[in-house]
């Protein structure tokens, strides 16, 4: 069992400060995802936890034991940290068969041939590579190589697994399948997983907790997937989690205005500032022909199951989606140039000056 503690870690490459005063705690037995745009330093952090890189400043603890300490320049080498790592490019050794790849950690640990054989075959079944154990990596598909990498990381029975964008190179179907498999394995084996990705869908689906990093390597919010999706701490997180719309809203005498039109909504914002930004997803907009905020359809697209509209609202453009069936039933199929009315089911409110939410304490 393992937890990870990152204490005021600094890391830079020449003039590029990747991490400044980074603090994180990953609890024992959870699947923790670090989500952020490419180049934000997620992988650097993973590599520091694994021991491939040394922090310039700060301390890293695994299972409450210090593994990297910049003060004493002490660092536990990767091979003594008891962890499994799955790399973005799988890093399956091309000169070894599936069996030998997966067996390698046990061979290093000098286990007997019989034990190795038994354990490897168990893992081979577990990751779904039955009957492929004699193949060479060049004879495997990307997804199968991915499983080899996963099996190799699992076989040493590590208490901690580090996964660096392991699903990136897979096609969409396989990616979906693998993310549930990883989650299922984690539940079954009770290990701690530290998962790094820039794919918000994977992160939301797989994680117990998510930390979102901005491109400067700063952690913006930590929370459960639901918490983060419903209460994003700022506009960056909101944008990062999906297609987003933003409208400027004025707050005056307890009333809300978009331009000159008054906005009626059940749940009032808990920010007192006069200038707000309303953020919402395309599916959070209810389009109608009778009442609401007035807009003009500027583009109408039929996407099959959904209708996709671009609507001009008070000089801003809003993107909405409505179920095609629903649209047909309720006469909500619009042509370009037609007038429509908008209502909002769910809005995330940001202070226009800070682009932060009103409620503090999201940033743990």
């Amino acid at each position, binding site marked *: 069992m393992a937890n990870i503690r990152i204490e005021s870690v600094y890391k830079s490459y020449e003039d590029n400060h990747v991490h400044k005063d980074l603090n994180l705690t990953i609890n024992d037995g959870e699947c923790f995802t670090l989500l952020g745009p490419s180049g934000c330093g997620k992988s650097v952090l993973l590599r520091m936890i694994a021991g491939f890189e040394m922090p310039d400043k700060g301390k890293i603890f695994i299972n409450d034991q210090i593994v990297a300490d910049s003060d004493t320049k002490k660092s536990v080498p990767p*091979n003594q940290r008891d962890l499994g790592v799955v790399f973005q490019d799988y*890093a399956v050794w091309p000169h070894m068969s599936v069996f030998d790849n997966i067996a390698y950690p046990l061979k290093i640990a000098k286990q007997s041939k019989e034990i190795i054989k038994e354990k490897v075959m168990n893992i081979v079944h577990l990751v779904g590579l039955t009957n492929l154990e004699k193949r060479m990596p060049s004879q495997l598909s990307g997804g199968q190589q991915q499983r080899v990498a996963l099996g190799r990381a699992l076989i040493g029975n590590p208490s901690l697994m580090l996964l660096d964008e392991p699903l990136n190179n897979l096609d969409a179907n396989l990616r979906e399948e693998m993310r549930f498999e990883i989650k299922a394995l984690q539940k079954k084996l009770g290990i701690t997983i530290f998962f790094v990705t820039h794919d918000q869908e994977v992160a939301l689906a797989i994680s117990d907790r998510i930390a979102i990093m901005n491109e400067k390597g700063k952690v913006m919010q930590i929370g459960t997937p639901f918490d983060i999706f419903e209460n994003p701490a700022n506009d960056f997180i909101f944008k990062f989690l999906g297609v987003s719309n933003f409208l400027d809203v004025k707050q005056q005498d307890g009333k809300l205005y978009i331009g000159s039109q008054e906005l009626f909504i059940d749940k009032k914002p808990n920010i007192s500032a006069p200038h707000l930004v309303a953020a919402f997803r395309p599916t959070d907009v209810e389009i109608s022909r009778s009442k609401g905020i007035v807009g003009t359809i500027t583009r109408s697209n039929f996407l099959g199951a959904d209708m996709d509209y671009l609507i001009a609202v008070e000089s801003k453009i809003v993107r909405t989606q409505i179920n095609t069936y629903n649209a047909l039933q309720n006469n909500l199929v619009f042509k370009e140039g037609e007038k429509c009315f908008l209502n909002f089911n769910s809005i995330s409110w940001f202070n226009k000056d800070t682009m932060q939410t009103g409620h503090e304490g999201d940033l743990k």
Partner: protein
Amino acid sequence: MNIVKKPGLSITNIILFISIGILVIFVAFPVLLILFNAFFGGGTLNVKDIVSVVSNPETYQALLNSVFIASGTTLFSTIVGTFFAWLVTRTDLPFKGFMKIVFLVPFMLPSFIGAIAWKMLLNPRAGYINRFFMDTLGFSDPVFNIYSYLGMMLVETMYLFPFVFIQVSGALERMDPTLEESARISGAGLFTITRKITIPLVLPSVISGALLIMLYSMAHFGTVAVLGMEHGIFNIPTLIYEKIHASAGNFQSIRTATVLASVLIISAACIIWLQRKVLGSGKYQIIGGKSFRPVELKLRGLRYPLLFICLGYIAFTILLPTLTIFLVGGLKTYGLPFTMENLSLANYHFVLFEWQLTKDAIFNSVTLGFAAAVITMFAGVMISYVLVKMKVRGKGILEFLGVLPFSVPGSVIALGVILAWSGKFGINLYNTVWIILVAYIARYMAFSLQANKAALSQVHDSLMEAAQACGATMGQTLKDIVLPLVRPGMLSAFFLIFLPALRELTVSVMLYSPATRTLGVAIYTLNEDGETVYSAALAGIALIIIVLGQLFIKKVLGAKQQ
């Protein structure tokens, strides 16, 4: 988990120090000694002295000759190489695949053996071709005198043009044909496309190949030694050889030799720098790694005439000299006509099994080549590992040192090891076989670095990190992951060194003693001493060994790649 201290004298640092040490001792130190001797010969910087050495007519003439011969060779090789490259990549010449391989054959033929053959063919009085024209066809004068600047340029061109051929045909093959197609769609004719699109895109490769030839020819010993020396034509390497051999130990001779060598070092450095700049320029980027099928020019009626020109060129430059070597090697006495009663295998038998001198030479070359190849292969893999894989402070020094072997010509290395290992610094290897080994290691380090760096850069860092994450130590990672993956690179490094070392002349001719003749030295000295038939027989045997070796590599490396 036990805590391990990282900095300090770790394995990483030890490997770095050893790598730097190898390059310093074998390459940098000898080169520095040459430069030091040239510029600070009397203990202080003495420009006047250098000027007087350079302005000595003999030295001055050698410098001019080197530049003149190299320029001519470069010009001819570039024309020939580019033309053939274009023929085999961009036209519908018949048997293109076969011709592409045939044009690489000249690489196998050592140019000093080629020069010996041409001397037999085009000696103004005794050459077989000249004699045929004079005796049979009644010409009053020889048709060509091989002992001339033009003769040397042409002989060097015959065996050096593949440098340009390889670079240019590679570039022409990899060039994205859409670049030319879009010009064609824009309305440009084939001539305009060639002038405005193709030539500018291939120019960096042409220039790079030409620069390689320039570098090689300026520092080239064999051809000038065989064809120029006895008629008073010296270039830089042959004059260095003359100075060292004629008066070993004489201060003024060594002084002259070091100044000449310094000129070679400096021009080599400039050429290498220029070449990297040309290849590194943006234009080259357009040539991708993929293989496309470019538009082919229809040669129509010229298809077969051009094929015959190609075949004729190969027959004239490769087959004819090779055949001459083998035939002369079979003659009882040099000068006799090639009739059945004059030809036998007796000379071959004699040099292979009876004559101690030639037997020793073959043995020396094989053992020296093998030892140099093994040592250089392992040293190269270690140095490449530091260069490609390690993140360690002080790597910059190694990167600089790593470029050095590429830019130090053979005669410079030979002079350098004489200065370094003749007892002046406590170790005297002069006149032993060890000094040749040391020089070979320095000379062939570049090949080993190139092959091993290429192999290592294929081994992605994550493959090694994965092993460490699996609990493997650095040593286990190297043994289980890195070594098996770079083995093909090491093997090709071995052969890239072993085969050229077998026929090496430039370095060993300056370092040999009567007991340490190499194959190249034996062929060369026998020829100089007038033992022409034995020299030719030995050259024939060398050619057979080289060809067998090449076939063996093809087989071994070809099998490995599957």
